[in-house]
């Protein structure tokens, strides 16, 4: 029989420490839906999503009941629409509307894939898609968009970076009435993964199969509690404790992923080994860093503690799952993390420190509220800096910033739900205009002479 203390530990993790499955995401290929006529194309897209995902939510709920584990989100990711839009031409907004309708019909809260991969250049379809992003995010509720503007193999497309600065700004303006929420659904990537189950950056990569199930786990609260219980021990022991905890969390993800894949008759893709915070108290990545010994997240020592955390989560998780992928690592979305919000409010956490943190953890500058007067060029330069970190270090980085229209330092945005809310953060206004306006391609980095 099972060990009583193991049983009690698991129950405590779920009941008190917010352990949950953050998302079951079904990836659906839409490559076979491309048609020369946009209306026919949209009809096929809608039909395929509804056919493949019709049982997604009911199966998710059934697994939740069977195991007693909360599964917070059931979501869908699709082939980057930029590829489909290339064959059909026409008004791309129709795709956004078709996706939104399908997401609503299927009962999923987000659908990702209104995306374009333009790290080396842009096709007419991709250009049209990017131009339509502000309108698409303002006129739909559940569609998420992402654009990959760089990779370690191709370098960074500076023309696309410049364009994305303008698109982020325009998206904020078009959704200014609802706290600029459009920007919370738009991610700019470098080295975007093909199998990411997390929004807003999820899309179904072109190298993927027809349909897969990817699962993202969560559990910052569990890791924090384990570190707290350890008390005064060395950092080696802390790393070991995090590894063991990550193993347990990921095992649960693996169990749910395999079960979901069997019940839906869809191949199991990956488990994303992630620590995804929520605004709920006790579900914060920042609080883990503080438990490791920092007075407040954002002070000196933050990058080092985050590096330990991120590495240990992956080491524990890899052993626990047969297939891993996605964004795997600790997330640091400011507005979605109670500890980060607190640190940003008291001024301990700056944009520059967050940028340093992204060099050692998963993803990048995530859910950061910027002053409303931040120019498109400054946003583009923030994207370029972040993409450069990803490109040079062969890792995924991303930017999801929200220029708060009409607001400045001292004011806040509130999105509610998992997206949370947070204070406007300070930006360096020195002009990068000449650099951004040069355009062209930042060359890919050398693979040798690593110093």
């Amino acid at each position, binding site marked *: *029989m099972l060990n009583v203390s193991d049983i009690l530990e698991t*129950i405590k993790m779920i009941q008190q420490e917010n352990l949950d499955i953050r998302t079951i995401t079904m990836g659906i290929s839409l490559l076979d839906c491309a048609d020369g006529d946009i209306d026919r194309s949209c009809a096929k897209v809608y039909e395929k999503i509804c056919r493949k995902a019709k049982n997604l939510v009911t199966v998710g709920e059934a697994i939740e009941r*069977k195991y007693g584990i909360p599964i917070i989100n059931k979501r869908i990711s699709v082939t980057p629409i930029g590829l489909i839009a290339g064959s059909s031409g026409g008004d791309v907004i129709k795709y956004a509307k078709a996706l939104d309708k399908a997401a609503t019909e299927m009962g999923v809260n987000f659908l990702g894939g209104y995306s374009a991969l333009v790290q080396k250049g842009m096709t007419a379809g991709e250009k049209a898609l990017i131009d339509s992003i502000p309108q698409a995010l303002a006129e739909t509720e559940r569609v998420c968009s992402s654009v990959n503007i760089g990779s370690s193999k191709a370098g960074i497309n500076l023309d696309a970076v410049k364009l994305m600065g303008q698109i982020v700004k325009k998206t904020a303006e078009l959704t200014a009435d609802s706290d600029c929420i459009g920007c919370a659904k738009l991610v700019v990537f470098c080295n975007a993964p093909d199998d990411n189950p997390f929004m807003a950056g999820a899309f179904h990569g072109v190298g993927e199969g027809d349909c897969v199930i990817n699962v993202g786990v969560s559990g910052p609260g569990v890791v924090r509690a384990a570190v707290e219980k350890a008390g005064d021990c060395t950092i080696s022991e802390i790393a070991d404790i995090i590894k063991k905890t990550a193993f347990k969390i990921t095992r649960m993800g693996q169990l749910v992923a395999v079960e979901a894949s069997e019940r839906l008759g869809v191949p199991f893709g990956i488990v994303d080994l992630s620590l995804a915070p929520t605004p709920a108290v006790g579900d914060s990545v920042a609080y883990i860093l503080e438990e490791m010994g920092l007075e407040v997240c954002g002070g000196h020592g933050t990058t080092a503690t985050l590096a330990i955390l991120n590495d240990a989560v992956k080491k524990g998780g890899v*052993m626990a799952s047969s297939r891993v992928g996605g964004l795997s690592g600790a997330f640091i979305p400011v507005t979605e993390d109670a500890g980060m919000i607190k640190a940003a409010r008291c001024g301990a956490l700056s944009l520059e420190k967050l940028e340093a943190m992204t060099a050692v953890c998963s993803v990048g500058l995530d859910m950061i509220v910027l002053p409303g007067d931040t120019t498109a060029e400054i946003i583009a330069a923030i994207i370029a800096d972040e993409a450069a970190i990803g490109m040079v270090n062969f890792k995924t980085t991303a930017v999801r910033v929200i220029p708060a229209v009409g607001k400045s330092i001292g004011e806040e945005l509130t999105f509610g739900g998992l997206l949370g809310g947070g204070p406007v953060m300070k930006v360096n206004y020195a002009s990068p205009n000449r650099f951004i306006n040069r355009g062209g391609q930042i060359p890919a980095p050398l693979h040798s002479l690593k110093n």
Partner: protein
Amino acid sequence: MRAVITVIGKDTVGILARVSALCADNDVNILDVTQSVLQDMFAMVTLVDVAAVDDDFAAFAEQMKVLGEKEGLVIHVMHEEIFNSMHRI
């Protein structure tokens, strides 16, 4: 399929009887029981066969939870597979 019922709370007369009666009402067979009383805190872990309530597992878990609330205990029912996958390699 098998599930684990955990009962935690202040020790009172008849806890085991009430939990096992509810199991019997639902045609749930008890396979193994371990219990300990630390000072006046009662902790019981029961392994049960829930094949009979397979379709209505959530409803059975809910009944147990309600019983727990009535008796001032915390009763939790979870699928055995969770513990196996989490704590065994």
